[in-house]
């Protein structure tokens, strides 16, 4: 399955390997893994809420756009929800193509677009147990997504 939204952890390398198994036309595989940072020791956990159904649908739209833009031979997107501790994996994308330029560009595009379009929200919990509040969307993420738009 190309797209998964799940509570469970994943093994990024198995997802990436699946893209090249029993084929020899893939020349480049790019894997991105996003992890929960401890924010200098202040963060105890991230709680990730999502909109079931819409999360999968929005990621599917982003995947479809990536497929139209680049000649991809395979891809995987996994986004977790629930409570995650520092060091835990949050999200991964893996892209396979004949050439490295397409694989790199598509992986970065998928991450940029997913961050601004897919309905997930992060709440930070501090090491003192207190809720630190909802993570605010960053203008930098909108800017990252905007650069893929035609001028």
């Amino acid at each position, binding site marked *: 399955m190309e797209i998964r939204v799940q509570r469970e952890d994943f093994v990024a390398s198995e997802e990436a390997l699946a893209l090249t198994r029993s084929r020899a036309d893939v020349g480049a595989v790019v894997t991105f893994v*996003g992890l929960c940072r401890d924010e200098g020791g202040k963060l105890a956990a991230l709680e*990730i*809420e*999502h*909109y079931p*159904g*819409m*999360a999968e*649908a*929005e990621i599917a739209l982003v995947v479809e756009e990536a497929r139209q833009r680049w000649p991809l031979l395979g891809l995987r997107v996994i*986004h977790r929800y629930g409570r995650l501790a520092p060091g835990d994996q*949050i*999200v991964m994308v893996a892209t396979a193509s004949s050439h490295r330029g397409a694989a790199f560009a598509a992986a970065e595009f998928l*991450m940029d677009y*997913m*961050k*601004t*379009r*897919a*309905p*997930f*929200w*992060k*709440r930070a919990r501090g090491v003192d147990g207190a809720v630190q509040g*909802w*993570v*605010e*969307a960053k203008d930098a*993420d909108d800017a990252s997504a905007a650069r893929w738009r035609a001028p």
Partner: protein
Amino acid sequence: MKAVYFAWVRERIGKAEEEIDPPAEVVTVADLIGWLSRRDEGYAHAFENPRTIRAALDRAHVKPDAALAGAREVAFFPPMTGG
């Protein structure tokens, strides 16, 4: 129609989902935000800054001027912070 709320929109309103039955003059998403905001302080607080509210109709992003038309599910939430 069904309304669903996420993240701090859900917390401020105090529920994750509900059935709503707006009157005929509530045509757009923006109209619905105004109508809900007049219900009580929680809704008013959730919708106090329209810039930070995102909406979806039947699980697709829409702008405030989108018509509710025959939508079965409307969702309100803050800007996304996944990834």
